[in-house]
């Protein structure tokens, strides 16, 4: 995670922000409507051959309107915004091998930065997702809200930082609630190499 705030924040500032929404009102829309090809590619490394994800007739026989996306991809894969889109400036302005264009998994490029000390690394730690409606080929998903619900400071084997949990909602193009998510991450500074 890389924050670029002018103010020097403390971990107490982050704890004091529990309950606040850090989406900044931004509604994050998926780069594309859900595509059959994207579902196929999602299933490929999982070797997930469930016909609900590739056979329209079978999906209909089992109560769906057509092919559905695997639920495990709803929270990110099928609701993720584009990395680059026409009109954007280049995301790769130099040849630094570690330069990255993608948005951070903890969403720190979204409208409202977190009031926390600068950290240089992060990964996801916790997942809790409730599903309310299937996602079909052609659906367009939007993610709303990024409410901070928990902050726990901890030193781990990889460094020192904070475990955080955020709540969001995902809806489809009809405004129908698809999923509620509580996702946790650990933002930290790695231990110095001995």
């Amino acid at each position, binding site marked *: 995670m890389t924050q670029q705030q002018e103010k020097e924040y403390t971990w107490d500032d982050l704890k004091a922000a529990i309950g606040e929404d850090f989406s900044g009102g931004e509604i994050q829309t998926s780069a594309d409507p859900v595509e059959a090809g994207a579902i196929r590619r999602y299933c490929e490394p*999982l070797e997930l051959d469930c016909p609900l994800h590739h056979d329209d007739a079978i999906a209909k026989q089992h109560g769906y309107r057509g092919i559905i996306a695997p639920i495990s991809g709803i929270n990110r894969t099928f609701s*993720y915004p584009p990395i680059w889109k026409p009109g954007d400036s280049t995301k790769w302005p130099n040849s630094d091998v570690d330069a*990255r264009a993608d948005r951070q998994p903890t969403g720190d490029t979204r409208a409202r930065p977190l009031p926390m000390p600068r950290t240089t690394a992060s990964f*996801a730690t916790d*997942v809790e997702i409730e599903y309310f409606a299937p996602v079909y080929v052609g659906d367009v998903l939007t993610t709303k809200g990024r409410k901070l619900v928990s902050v726990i400071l901890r030193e781990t084997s990889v460094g020192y930082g904070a475990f955080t949990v955020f709540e969001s909602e995902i809806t489809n193009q009809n405004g129908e609630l698809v999923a509620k998510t509580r996702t*946790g991450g650990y933002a930290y500074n790695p231990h110095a190499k001995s």
Partner: protein
Amino acid sequence: MADWTQQRYFEDVDEGTELPPVTFHLTVQRMIIEAGANRDFSPIHHNTRVAQSQGAPEMYINNVFIQGMWNRTVQEFIGLDGRIKKVGPFRMKIFNTVGDPVTTKGTVKKKWQEDGQNLVELEVWSETLKGVSVGPGPVLVALPSG
């Protein structure tokens, strides 16, 4: 691979019923294909050097890959008429790194009927050669009645 012509019913499961385990071998190629498919290009998931610079022993899979493993394991158990209603909370405890075989396992914790639905709570976890790497965590499913 699962036989999708077979449907599991609410009456077929009891507390302690085990899910058939599914093992996923994490090769570099598979992790790259997965990262491209699930759109998580954080280098910790495809670049050993970056992962190690952040304290991990090797490049490791992301939470969507893990969710996908659980998704497949559970869907194969509940069949085409089963519905996954909720996953988690679960915690990824240790890194699932390249070269690891990751096996998803599970058991039936309880079953009950509510609002006309046949609900079953599964307990699911992932194991590597180092032990339990993810979970255990609950997965709530609905099954048809036979």
